[in-house]
């Protein structure tokens, strides 16, 4: 097994674990840290299976997009606008 295959296996296993934790957590805001772990794992898998310069852009775009979504969900759920807006 190459280091790359070992890394993909670890990331994929953690992604599945995080997805299960997201599904089991009843509180919406407390789901988000688990969702964050899921995003990290998927970003890792994207970079590991797409070793191309655009793979970095794809991984970063996915990660920043999912972070922005979590930010929007949390801020909306908390019932307020971003303080800096």
């Amino acid at each position, binding site marked *: *097994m*190459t*280091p*790359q295959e*070992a*890394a*993909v296996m*670890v*990331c994929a296993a*953690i992604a599945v*674990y*995080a997805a299960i*934790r997201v599904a089991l957590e009843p*509180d919406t*805001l*407390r789901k*988000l*840290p*688990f*969702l*964050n*772990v899921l995003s*990290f*794992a998927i*970003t*890792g898998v994207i*970079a*590991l299976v797409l*070793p*191309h*310069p655009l*793979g*970095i*852009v794809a*991984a*970063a*775009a996915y*990660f*920043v997009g999912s*972070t*922005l979504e*979590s*930010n*929007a*969900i*949390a*801020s*909306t*759920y*908390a*019932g*307020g*606008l*971003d*303080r*800096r*807006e």
Partner: protein
Amino acid sequence: MDISLLAFAHILVAAAVCWLNFIVIDLIFRLPAGGGVVGATAIGQHIKERGGSLHGGYMMGNIVSSPDASAGTLLASCGVFIAGIPGGLLATLLVYIGNRICHDPGYAGTTGCVTATCIVYGFTLLGFSPAEFIAGMVIAIMTIQGISHRHSSRLLSWLWKVRGG
């Protein structure tokens, strides 16, 4: 040693290095001081309601709400894996753009990305693969965000107290 066992051993070492990198930089940039956006504050309060600690919860909320040093470490590892140091620097630029998109005025993400690029490249000279750092960072974030929010928020609050608040 069997090659796959060696890879898993490297991944565990990489996880420890990534953990130290992102925790130290997030503490230096005062992430546990308060929520950067209302969503991060709310996540901290919900974690506290479940028996966690407030300042650790704020830091976890901030990690969720904007690319911080942990995201910087992950994307720097991806960048170095794909294109060496230039890839790490491209990742730094993307994290900087991500911070601005998420209304984060801080520089924890970009700083973490630059330090991680240097660290990951340094470890490749010792026989590590950048791919092992990608898996290592995923394990490191799982220990904080994905196992027990109560215990990890208490640990982060304790570290915040050690730093001096």
